[in-house]
């Protein structure tokens, strides 16, 4: 698997809007999320190897990689669902497994709404588990529901909602406990293209107001470029980060669907796809 390591820290490109970042993680003061040297073995197979990454407050980092490269496993490690076989994970300066469960917001690919609960009851689940009373937590849900476009469906059951709405309820549930770090695992992966692009734009608007460190996992390169300030590229067998691309598009001001056809966007996409296919080559 030797040849791929040449890509780690490679200067990605000199074209406008793209700058190569030679070292992982990007140097930053006191990141909210710091993953260093993390590895994970499952049944003595290396799933993840030597993962380093850091996400600052107010930063949105996208992680792209082919299916099965361990992206979701990495999020499970950060959230505390799994324990790493090697390395350290720090969230807001705290380095302990037990303390992370319940302290990292994590939105999975599936909405995982409890079918016996209304939208409002699903939304307040995280607060309820912390012992916040029903009246208070429902008020908090109602407060957020406005900007989530859920104000009219708070009393509805999950099966009455569209896929896009269900994902928004799942995000609301993940965000309400107000943790500093937010993990998103293919949050719009199961949705149709139109709904997805609408929600991507909406997500940026909702999150700008929150001062968080966001780590998004996706296999959709366009989504990674659209949403991320930086894109980390992963390769499989074992899963590792092989490159980092800073996104700094001139066309970013161009709102709406046209952005994905802008010249610098397409060029960035080509670069990342190249990195992905190089990483995927079996040595």
């Amino acid at each position, binding site marked *: 698997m030797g040849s791929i390591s040449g890509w780690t820290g490679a200067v990605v490109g000199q074209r406008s809007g793209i700058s190569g970042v030679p070292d992982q993680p990007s140097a930053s003061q006191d990141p909210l999320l710091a993953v260093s040297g993390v590895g994970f073995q499952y049944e003595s197979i290396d799933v993840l190897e030597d993962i380093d990454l850091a996400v600052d407050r107010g930063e949105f980092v996208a992680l792209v990689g082919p299916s099965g490269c361990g992206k979701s496993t990495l999020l499970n490690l950060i959230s505390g669902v799994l324990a790493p076989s090697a390395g350290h994970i720090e969230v807001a300066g705290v380095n302990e497994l037990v303390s992370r469960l319940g302290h990292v917001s994590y939105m999975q690919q599936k909405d995982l709404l409890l079918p016996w609960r209304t939208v409002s009851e699903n939304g307040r689940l*995280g607060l309820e588990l912390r012992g916040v009373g029903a009246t208070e937590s429902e008020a908090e849900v109602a407060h957020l529901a406005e900007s989530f476009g859920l104000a009219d469906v708070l009393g509805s059951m999950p099966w009455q909602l569209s896929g896009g709405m269900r994902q928004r309820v799942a995000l609301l549930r993940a965000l309400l406990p107000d943790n500093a770090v937010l993990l998103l695992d293919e949050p719009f992966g199961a949705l149709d293209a139109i709904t997805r692009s609408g929600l991507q734009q909406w997500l940026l608007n909702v999150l700008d107001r929150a001062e968080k460190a966001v780590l998004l996992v996706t296999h959709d390169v366009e989504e990674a470029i659209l949403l991320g300030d930086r894109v980390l590229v992963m390769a499989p067998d074992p899963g590792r980060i092989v490159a980092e691309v800073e996104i700094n598009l001139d066309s970013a001001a161009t709102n709406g669907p046209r952005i994905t056809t802008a010249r610098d966007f397409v060029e960035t996409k080509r670069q990342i796809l190249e990195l992905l296919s190089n990483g995927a080559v079996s040595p």
Partner: protein
Amino acid sequence: MSYLRNSAAVWVPTVIALATLLVVWEVAVWGFGIESWLLAPPSAVFGELYDSPGLLVGHAGTTLTEIILGFAISISIGVVLATGIVWSRVIERSVFPIIIASQTIPIFALAPLLIIWIGTDIMSKVVVVVLFTFFPVVISLVTGLRSVDSEMVDMLRTLGATPYQTFSKLMVPTALPNFFAGMKVAAVISVIGAVIGEWFSADRGLGAVIIVAHSNLDMPTLFGAIFTLAVIGIGLTVLVSLIERKALFWHESSFPV
């Protein structure tokens, strides 16, 4: 949901089928000249129920008490056992095989023994009902509690849920559809359990009525007792179904078609 439940389309076929059965029965008894001590026509059975309601109602009360007590104890035991089995590997490996093995013993054969051990009063019949009904309750609950989605469990953990919170807020609601299915099976066979218990010793209850009526070749009373037992069984099943619909309003099985 409710419009379906109340609409005539649901009830009419059932009523017509039952009425047809009763008419065929009545006509067959008269048409083939069957002696009434062999097979009583429905008219005689309902006539008996109408003439001496006190007899059957009184005995039905005894049988119903046994069934309800046995059913309640079954559910209590079932909930405790199923929770323990799902909670702990040690309990699963020690208790579950015994529960399964206990079901290979014909409970019918145990009934006379239980009468000797516990006595001829109502408690021995309650125990027979429990032996008949706790198994479907335990099995359905264990299956239900185990059917929980591991991704849901992880989701709750990331929200900071304790194991107890995961159990009460996720596993218990997830188990309810299976639990109610098991309860419906238990409701039906609880009637069988009570009657078998009564056959061996009782002087009260519909099982005792059947034994006495049988030795007197009193077919109208015998059929009246059987009919009353059927009504009890149907009533219990309907009751469980109604509670199920209330509790599982969110479940696919209660969605409008």
